[in-house]
């Protein structure tokens, strides 16, 4: 792994850049430093923004300087390098792919040449790495979509997509955490709310976690939606270790 670059971000932040491509190994470096800084905070650090290949660290300039922070992070990196034993957290998210929610399934089917059942099977067949959160509160940039499912975005984006909609946009797949405009092909919907300001924590998952989709029918969707409104947990979290999975396999799909 190359040495990370420290880039100036004004008087109150520092960017630690681990590479210049979308790669799960580079992203794992970002995650390792992010967790190290969250687990044992440096005095004066306000928060960190992990992205595909860099960590932006915001600090209070009254307490810390970029120069001092760089030295402290260098020290942390020496101990944060080994990420192989880090816990792997997989959120299993129920998704209903029925036509009432998956409005664009016919287009995805036509584009990919796969039957809806095969699309669902493949969509549910991967642990998707959350490279980063951004764009909307709790919007997860996922890596690992089966290349056979890549489908271009809609030519005319919808003005309103409901919260929980699951779609495919080009090489990406994901969940709309709140109602928003959008151009992804909708293939289903989850009753899970990745973002709920009244819940602790308001955002379910973090960069470095994984998402796996599980197909449910409409009756189950209705039942889970009701349970969720009563404050029940309707997703499942599986814990494992990073070395349980083949990094190489992810890397093949990760370039999306």
């Amino acid at each position, binding site marked *: 792994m190359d040495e990370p670059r420290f*880039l*100036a*971000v*004004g*008087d*109150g*932040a520092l*960017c630690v*850049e681990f590479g*210049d*491509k*979308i790669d799960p190994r580079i992203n794992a470096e970002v995650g390792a430093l*992010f967790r190290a800084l969250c687990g044992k905070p440096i005095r004066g650090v*306000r*928060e*960190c*923004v*992990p*992205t*595909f*290949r*860099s*960590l*932006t660290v*915001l600090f209070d*300039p*009254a307490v810390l*300087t*970029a*120069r001092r922070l760089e030295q402290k992070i260098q020290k942390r990196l020496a101990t944060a390098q080994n990420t192989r034993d880090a816990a792997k957290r997989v959120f299993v998210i129920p998704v209903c792919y029925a036509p009432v929610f998956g409005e664009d399934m016919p287009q995805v089917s036509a584009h990919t040449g796969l039957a809806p059942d095969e699309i669902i099977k493949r969509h549910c067949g991967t642990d998707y790495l959350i490279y*980063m*959160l*951004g*764009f*909307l*509160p*709790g*919007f997860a*940039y996922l890596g690992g979509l089966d290349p056979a499912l890549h489908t271009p975005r809609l030519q005319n984006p919808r003005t309103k997509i409901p919260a929980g909609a699951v779609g495919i946009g080009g090489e990406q797949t994901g969940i709309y955490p*709140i109602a928003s405009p959008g151009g992804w092909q909708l293939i289903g919907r989850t009753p899970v709310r990745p*973002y709920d*300001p009244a819940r602790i924590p*308001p*955002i379910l998952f*973090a*960069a470095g976690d994984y998402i796996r989709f599980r197909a449910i029918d409409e009756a189950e969707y209705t039942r889970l939606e009701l349970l969720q409104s009563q404050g029940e947990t309707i997703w499942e979290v599986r814990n494992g270790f990073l070395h349980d999975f083949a990094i190489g396999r992810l890397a093949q799909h990760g370039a999306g």
Partner: protein
Amino acid sequence: MGFFTILQSGGLLSTVQDKGRFGFMASGFSPAGAMDLPAMECANLLVGQSSDVPVLEMTMTGVHLQTDCDCVIALTGADFAAKINDAPVQVYRALRLRAGDVLRCGAAVRGVRGYLAAAGGFAIEPVMGSCSTSVKFSLGGFEGRKLKAGDRLALRCPQLPVSRLDDRVLPVPAHLDKTRPAQNEHEVRAVLGPQNDRFSQSGIDTFLGSWYFVTTSSDRMGIKLDGAKIESKSGYDIISDGIVPGSVQVPASGRPIVMMADCQTTGGYTKIATVLSSDLHLLAQAKAGDWVRFAAVTSDEAARIARRHSAKSRRLEYAYLRV
């Protein structure tokens, strides 16, 4: 203890703001918070409370409101030519309101964003650690939205006896002082980077040597500038990474956008520089058509400036809260 009722006008964009919602940028939340932090802090100090109490931020045009209790308020930032019961009042001064009084804020005669602090503060429950309104996410502040006619803002009890707040005044910053000629040129300091290496030397020279004008597409998310095109060496797109308030993005148009309080947390445009946090308030008050120029400072200089700036606001807070 009482209520402010918004009368016929809620203003163009009036929202409750504090210093921002921190700790959630990793989940995609912009920090939000007051755009002109020094003005917001002054408003609170004038009414005798710590500088981070939530205030009302008004944009271009202000609110009309009626109070049903005696209270003390202060108006800072942009000057909205406010009147209490038809009598003009000054900005940067503690003002006494009596039950039934009507405050009318007009259109901004200097600056863009004005702040109204009430002694005791507004009774707003924090969401995710902050009372700031994020309109885009319908989060925080008053029902997650801008104020409109008929809204009733509850007040808390003042931290200091109101009789001790009379005649408190702070100096009006020169660029917001309507007794001086209008300033429509603003120089802001910035540190080059994080992606300044993506630009040619002539691109950097253009960026630092040109006056850019503020376009009408500017808002709480970003101040969009127009002017000389900044030449890139290797394209304007990067793999998305972190954005902070102050980040100067240069998209394919070659014209800079300075990201502000409601900025998205990640983005895929090159960032040529980052404006110092102590200078962002100048951009918050820059009107469409105003001119902006960037002056480069080194990281070390930026650190010194930031320390001086925060020491100054701590001294001010100490002086005004030690009654």
